[in-house]
C-alpha cells in the first residue's frame, strides 16, 4: 500500500496530518498495523492532557502484542476518537482514516521537522533489514 504524500510521519510509525485550523491529527501507519495484526484494544490520551514530543501517550494492542503510541509533537490533546476505542479493528481496515487523537501543537513549525512520505518509506525499508 502506498504511503499518502499529504501526511507527515515519525520514526515510531505515527502519521500526522496538519489541519487547516492549526491542530494536527494523529494515527498509526498502515505498516504499523500490519506488523501488529488484528487490533483489539485502543486507549487514547485524555482531552486536555499536555504532551511532550516523543512522550508515550496512547496504547494500541493487537491479539499478539501491545504497542505504545508517541506524541509526534509537543502540545495539548484537543480531541480523542472514541470510535477507534470502541472498534479497534477500524485501524486495520483503514489506518489513515482511523485517526486516534488531535493535538494543538505548542509550536506549529514542529510538524515540518517530521518525516515526509519518501523519508518514511526509506525508514520502513531500513527497518526491514
Amino acid at each position: 500500500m502506498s504511503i499518502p504524500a499529504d501526511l507527515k510521519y515519525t520514526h515510531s510509525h505515527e502519521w500526522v496530518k496538519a489541519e487547516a485550523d492549526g491542530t494536527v491529527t494523529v494515527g498509526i501507519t498502515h505498516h504499523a498495523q500490519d506488523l501488529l495484526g488484528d487490533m483489539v484494544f485502543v486507549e487514547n490520551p485524555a482531552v486536555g492532557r499536555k504532551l511532550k514530543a516523543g512522550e508515550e501517550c496512547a496504547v494500541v494492542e493487537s491479539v499478539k502484542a501491545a504497542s505504545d503510541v508517541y506524541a509526534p509533537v509537543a502540545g495539548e490533546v484537543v480531541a480523542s476518537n472514541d470510535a477507534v476505542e470502541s472498534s479497534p479493528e477500524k485501524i486495520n481496515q483503514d489506518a489513515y482514516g482511523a485517526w486516534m487523537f488531535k493535538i494543538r501543537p505548542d509550536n506549529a513549525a514542529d510538524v515540518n521537522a517530521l518525516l515526509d512520505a519518501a523519508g518514511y518509506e526509506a525508514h520502513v525499508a531500513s527497518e526491514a533489514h
Partner: protein
Amino acid sequence: MTELKKTPLNAAHRELGAKMVDFGGWDMPVNYGSQIEEHHTVRSGCGLFDVSHMLPVDIKSSDPKGENARAFLRRLVANNIDKLQVSGKALYSCMLNEAGGVIDDLIIYFMDENWFRVVVNAGTADKDLAWMQQCNADWGMNLALTPRRDLAMVAIQGPDAKRVLNEALPGADSLTETLKPFSAAALGEMFIARTGYTGEDGFEVMVLAKSAPFFWKALMEAGGKPIGLGARDTLRLEAGMNLYGQDMDETTNPLESGLAWTVDLKSARDFVGRKALEASEITKQLAGLVLLDKGVLRSHQKVFTKHGEGEITSGTFSPTLQQSIALARIPLGIAPGEEVEVEIRDKKLKAKVDNYPFVRNGKVLI
C-alpha cells in the same frame, strides 16, 4: 544470525502469503491474513496447522519382549505409562528433572511393546533428546531412540476436520470413523492421531517429509484453511492447555502449574522428580482469569489477591469470548468467582478468577 530452520511446508506457506516469524529458530507462519478469522475458522470449520517443527522420537526396544521401553518410560515421565495398555492409546505427561521442574511436556503413543512414539516441543527438542539418551545410558536400557526429522506433522482441527481428512485421504474414513480421541494408528509411514491443541475435534497426522506438500494441498482442496501459530496460541489458551516455556518450565513445580492431573503419585513407581515433588510445599495454583475491565492480559503482569501476589503466565484477547483471558499462577485459597486485580501499565484492573477451559468444542464454558 544463524539461518532459520524450515519445515517441508515452508514454500507452501510463502506461496500462501503467510507472515513468517522466527519461532524458536524456525521460520514459521504466524498468520496468513487475519489471526482472528483463522481462530474462528477452527471453532466453526476446519483449520490446518503445520506443526512439523515439533519432533517425534521413536523409542524401540532391542529386547524381543520389549519390556525395556515400558520400563524406561515408567521411570522417565511423571504420568503413569501403565495407563497405556491398548495399542494406539496416547498419554499426556511431563518429563521432570530431579528437582521436580518440568523439562518438557509431551505426548506418548503406545503402538506395541517394542515401539512407543513420543512427540516433544520444538524449542526443547535437542535438550529432551539429550536427556532421554543420557537416561537410556545411565539406566542401562539399551533402547534405540530415533528422532524423526524425516517426518512432517500437520494438525487438522475443527468440527469439519474429519470430513476434510477423509476427502484428502481417500480410504481414511474406515479409520477416522473408529479412531477414539487421544488415540493413534499407523498406516505404513503415515501416523494418524486424534489429538490436537485447540479444544476441538481433530487429528494430527505425520507423513514423510517429501509427501507433506502434496498432503497439505489435498487438505486445502478438501476445504481446510491454513492457520498460523498466532491463532494456535489463542485457541489453546481458550481451551485451557498449558504452553511450555510460559505456563511451566524447569523452574516450576507441575503441581503449581495446573498439571497435577498428569502427575501420578498413586503408583509405587520411582520416576525422576518424584522425591522432590513429594517434599515440595504447594503454595500456588494455576487459575483462569477473565478481565472485567477493558484491556488485554499478557504474560508476566502482576496479579494482586487477598492472599498475596501472583503472575500471569499466558494472556491474550479471546476471539470467542470477545474479552481478555489468562492463565495465572496465584496463591492457593483463591476460588473461582473471586475478584482480583491485575497491573497493566500503571493501572490496576479488575479480573475474575474462573475455572478453565474457557471454550471447548465451540462452546463457551464460563
